[in-house]
């Protein structure tokens, strides 16, 4: 469902989308059944002349089972949700797959700095490539990031990767992602960071091998034009091709694309 609204551009984005769908089915069914009973009771037991309400204490087992059995079902479904969630969580946050590249991400009021470790794969060496508000990565390679904040708490957020991670001053937080789709996408700061929080964005560009090398060459020889600046003012179309759905009005079209 999420993929209708935002591209799926990292290796674990699909896992998160699937988890969303699993939970939607589980709670969707529970929700509709509960709502159905609720609405049925509201209609069935509205006041009628001469019909007196029943006296039900809800303390006897025979009566209590009507709330207890659904409630046992919920316990069982909770276990399913917890189990599926932990599998996904362990994959995304608790394990670090072997890295191809390393990049340091630094948040400060109100911009992002990126330091790519360059060909040697080690940070703080001469071949590091530093950019501001622009992160360039290669498709299909696993990146480790070291997340830092200079002043206040920020949050490194890349919706197309389904990735959000707080950057805390005084700490280095490690994580990873593996881009699977080329293109330029938003980077956000998703934690209130003060006056300029609303402009603290950036662009992540996922390159093929050739275009990556080309961009790095441009950065080195000074002819580079910021992708973040170039993207500004453009409007990215939504991922799903909603033009096929014949519903008037874009809001309706968007909702229709969900179902």
């Amino acid at each position: 469902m999420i993929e209708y609204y935002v591209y799926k551009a990292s290796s674990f984005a699909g896992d998160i989308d699937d988890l969303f769908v699993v939970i939607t089915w589980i709670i969707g069914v529970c929700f509709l059944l509960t709502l159905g009973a609720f609405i049925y009771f509201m209609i069935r037991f509205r006041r009628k002349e001469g019909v007196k309400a029943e006296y039900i204490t809800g303390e006897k087992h025979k009566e209590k089972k009507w709330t207890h059995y659904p409630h046992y079902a919920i316990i069982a479904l909770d276990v399913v949700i917890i189990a599926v969630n932990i599998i996904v969580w362990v994959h995304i946050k608790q394990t670090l797959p072997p890295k191809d590249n390393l990049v340091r991400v630094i948040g400060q009021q109100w911009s992002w700095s990126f330091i790519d470790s360059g060909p040697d794969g080690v940070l703080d060496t001469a071949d590091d490539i530093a950019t501001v508000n622009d992160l360039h990565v290669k498709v299909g390679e696993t990146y480790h990031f070291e997340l830092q904040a200079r002043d206040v708490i920020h949050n490194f957020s890349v919706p197309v990767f389904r990735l959000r991670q707080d950057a805390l001053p005084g700490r280095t937080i490690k994580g990873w992602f593996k881009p699977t789709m080329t293109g330029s996408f938003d980077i956000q700061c998703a934690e209130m960071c003060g006056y300029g929080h609303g402009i603290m964005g950036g662009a992540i560009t996922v390159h093929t091998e050739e275009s990556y090398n080309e961009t790095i060459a441009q950065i080195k020889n000074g002819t580079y034009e910021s992708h973040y600046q170039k993207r500004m003012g453009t409007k990215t179309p939504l991922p799903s091709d909603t033009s096929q759905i014949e519903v008037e009005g874009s809001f309706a079209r968007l909702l229709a694309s969900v179902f």
Partner: protein
Amino acid sequence: MSEAAAAIHTEDHAEHHEELSFLYKYILPVDHKMIAMQYMFTGLIMAVIGGYFAYVFRMQLAYPGESVPFFGIVGPGEYNMMVTNHGTIMIFWVAMPVLIAAFGNFLIPLMCGCDDMVFPRLNRLSYQIFLVSALVLILSFFVKGGGFGGAWTAYPPLSSVPEFSLTDWGASLWVLAVALEFVSFLLGGINFVTTAMNARAPGMKMLDIPIAVWFIVIAVILFMASVGPLIAGAVMLFMDQRIGTTFFLPSGGGDPLLWEHLFWFFGHPEVYVVLLPTMGIVADIITVFSRKKLFGYRTVLYTAFATGGLSFVVWAHHQFVAGIDPRMANVFVVTTVLISIPIAEMLFSYIATLYGGSIEYTTPMLWALSFLFAFLIGGVTGIYLGASALDVYFHDSYFVLAHFHYTFFPITIIGMFAAITFWFPKMFGRMMNETLGKIHFWGTFIPFNCIFLPLFFLGLAGQHRRIYNYDHFPDLATEELQDIRVFATASLVIMLIFQVIFLYNFFYSMFKGEKAPDNPWKANTLEWTVPSPPPHGNFKTLPTVYRGAYEYSVPGREMDYWPQNMPPDES
């Protein structure tokens, strides 16, 4: 309180039933009903301020950069300040004073059958501190640099270092106001628990207490048990701001994560602190208007205990991606998802109460039922956010915001309207207009859904919170998403316009409404056995209680209700 002291207290009281001067009746009252009114009107005034802020920043989101009617151009600083203070006001200065303080004060002595709170002067002090806290908060909007804009969670170092927040005194006054508000509720809370536990009418056993009173008492206990760490945190934050300590500053050996733990250790139980009073109010309303005994009184009560207990061990679900050890998140996922069990059981019991009933759709009943509906949506969407892996995507997105408002709007606003429309006859001795009440209900409930349902979809699209203008994020600046923002804002404006009907109905009925009988809804609880409005001292003779609060439609009785104080041999 010893018995001797109690005796002196009642004696003292008996002598003071003569007419009080204006000053002592309205400005410095000790009467619990008048203090409840003070809390309620202060809360309503604060709700108007909080609603105005919501109007301004929603207009900015729908029409970025354009001049907002009744405000003007919204700058980023003003936007942040309004977002922050909308949250702070609605939780601490609307939900808590109206649901807990106003209705707790009004209902606990009346429902428990005593003449006043056990500590009336403490009660008065509690309101006075609350009033000061509200004034300090309002003052903070007007100091140099403007009001605090670092979100209602006030994460340091943003909140603790003036160079980062750019609101030097705004941030300090905000912390001070919140701390004062907590002091006020600690004083009030002691009073509520003592009164409900020690000053009940003879014969009222623990399981005869109306759920509304029970839930306010549990809420207050949760509040008092959880607020300690946050008061300590607030003092540390204030010292960081004003005298340069570094409790939350890494450069001085502190840790910003410490504040997050202190804040959310309080912040999550706080959700249940405001939820439970509304749940209790709703229990009383649905039983009255479906003429049914509450389904599983004990079950409902025990689920509240379970919810309260669990709420202390779920706080880190606000911090899944905040830099805590990822292994710890798994523990909090389990506790968080488990909290769905008692809450679901409670909702099931409420819905089961309707079974076999004779439901009359009065305005308070519509509010109570719409609360169940809206809270059901708020509850199930909470499961998504309790799952840590989804939180990796939804953290600080509009999905969180929509979920949050689907819990807090029903709790605060719907709960408040349910309670006001239900107890209005008892408070002011007059009936509210039913037709206007129903117009106001539909005019609030439909737009409410139109505001917040679309925001779930914005959250799915990855829209993050507290951004004054999405033009800087090309993926979010699409026309489709902007249409949703405009739709939500338009719904908000419609909803706000309908509140005028409520205000008219409220004030017109207060002075010109039809005179209310003692027991207009034919309810069982003790507050309906006294005149409307109840005189100073409440009961002519203190009542004796013979049964629980929910004996409706008992077989073999002509009357379909059975007041708690009616002796068993009468009918």
